[in-house]
């Protein structure tokens, strides 16, 4: 089985802080990480590889620095890593990004594509389903479990707000995966050694099956009109008091608000 896993390098948004004076983002020193849901997707691919044997290719689109993240994927157990990196991809929204990735996928042999549910920097959850549509593949999102059946189909648990849907998918498909369902393994020592002997292939736009006009900014229907720091609410009162006094304060407020 050939599996493609889509991964993205993202800033660790939990580490981003706001300058309280200027109200701007402090990005300095914020570490770059493999997007958590994508890492969950890689873990699922590696579990399928452990159980049934598979060739796992990780792909990413981004600047050359994403090389580090792809080496981490190799050290975890991926077999091949390809980075799409080209100025022509710059300014891509989710439609143009998914289109570029579809051009890469079309040049590879695959039976299954796995992506993360969403990336923590954009939180759109759009690239997976958009990629599936470009490739004409069925999609299953919010995947919490996937097993290969005897007949070659996949049995999948999709997590909804009010239920878990158990689905059976026939033939090639694309899954988007929840990090919380797949606790990712660590890199192994031998994996780390091997990762540095393996090559991270860097591909330009010329190497994939795409029309140039549909890439990057010109291929993006959505544009950022403006961005601004979020207006923060005025802080209220804060008290450092004994538990007894705290209870008193809270009860009085709840009465004032007619909650009790």
């Amino acid at each position, binding site marked *: 089985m050939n599996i493609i896993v889509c991964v993205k390098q993202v800033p660790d948004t939990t580490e981003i802080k706001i300058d309280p004076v200027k109200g701007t983002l402090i990005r300095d020193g914020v570490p770059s990480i493999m997007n958590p849901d994508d890492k969950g997707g890689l873990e699922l691919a590696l579990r399928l590889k452990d159980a049934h044997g598979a060739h796992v290719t990780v792909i990413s689109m981004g600047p050359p620095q994403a090389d580090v993240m792809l080496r981490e994927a190799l050290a975890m157990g991926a077999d091949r890593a390809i980075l799409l990196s080209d100025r022509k991809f710059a300014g891509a929204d989710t439609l143009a990004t998914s289109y570029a990735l579809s051009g890469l996928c079309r040049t590879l042999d695959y039976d299954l594509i796995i992506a993360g549910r969403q990336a923590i920097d954009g939180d*759109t959850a759009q690239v997976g389903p958009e990629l599936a549509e470009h490739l004409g593949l069925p*999609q299953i999102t919010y995947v919490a479990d996937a097993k290969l059946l005897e007949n070659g189909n996949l049995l999948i648990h999709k997590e909804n707000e*009010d239920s878990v849907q158990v689905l059976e998918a026939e033939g090639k498909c694309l899954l988007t995966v929840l990090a919380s369902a797949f606790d990712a393994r660590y890199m192994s020592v031998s994996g780390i050694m091997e990762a540095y002997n393996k090559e991270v292939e860097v591909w330009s736009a010329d190497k994939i099956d795409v029309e140039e006009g549909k890439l990057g900014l010109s291929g993006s229907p959505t*544009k950022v009109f403006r961005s601004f720091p*979020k207006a*923060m609410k005025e*802080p209220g009162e804060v008290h450092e008091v004994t538990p007894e006094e705290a209870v008193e304060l809270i009860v009085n407020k709840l009465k004032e*608000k007619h909650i009790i």
Partner: protein
Amino acid sequence: MEKKDYKNVFVFAEQREGVIQPVAFELLGKARDLADVLEEKVVAMFLGYGIKDKAQELIEHGADEVIVVDTPELKDFLSEQYSQAVSQIILDRKPHIVLYGATTIGRDLAPRLASRLKTGLTADCTKLEIQPVKEEEKEFCMTRPAFGGNLMATIVCPDNRPQMSTVRPGVMQKMQRDPNRQGVITVFEPKFDTSKFKVKVVETIKADKSIADISEAKILVSGGRGVHDKEGFDKLQALADVLGGQVASSRAMVDNGVMPHECQVGQTGKTVRPNLYMACGISGAIQHLAGIEESDFIIAINKDKFAPIFSVADLGIVGDLHKIVPMLTERIRKEMEK
């Protein structure tokens, strides 16, 4: 494509097992505002099986027209079946704007359609408005949080139609239901290409009914890392019980398996807008704050006086929740008995 051919504000009116989801009414409320500014109509797309009797409810919540697709293929939500039906409606009717709920259904369907229709989609919008962008030219402006809620971005989709966005449940206000509102119900019959139906439902396992939807709750007692464990959450549950509220959780306590995902508040969980939000042992990561900012009143209890949660709390208590919460529960129980 002629932009002027695209008219009216469409809403994908989500139902589950025949029950119209609250987010559908919220979207109709917003669609009503937008359509009034544009001098266009509000059209609900209502898909499922055995649902057509409920279409009138959508009219009473602001739709001028409801397009009903009522067919066995659409009994359960499946991406391909729903994508075929909705894309055929959109190609036929050419909407100006299409809104979807940012649920596991809307966030599956909308990007699939954006890719099929080659148009733009903006996820998880918190504000939708028709605004001038330069001189006299007005655009549909879709504002959403980015970078985990650290930044807001206003997105436009100037050249492609329809312009589409998803909106999370609890963000928009539904309009007052008006039983006298009049509207048109249109039946649409899609032509399915069944050869593309490659995914089937084996079974549906209902989530525990005891977990009510926190995005609908009026009172939430929410816990974070400071609650430590299940026993800690039992204390929060006792407080929620005396207040007639529900328990919610930060992401940390969902990721470590203490609480189920349905209880998660924040950017990757649910947006809540209760009358009272009590944050216990929650430091207040920006992603969490993004999900609670619509709350009427926020009380925070945290040991760390520098915790960011205090910057949004209306009443902040620096102290040990494990002492305060049980005492508070007892005290409120007594107050209620009075």
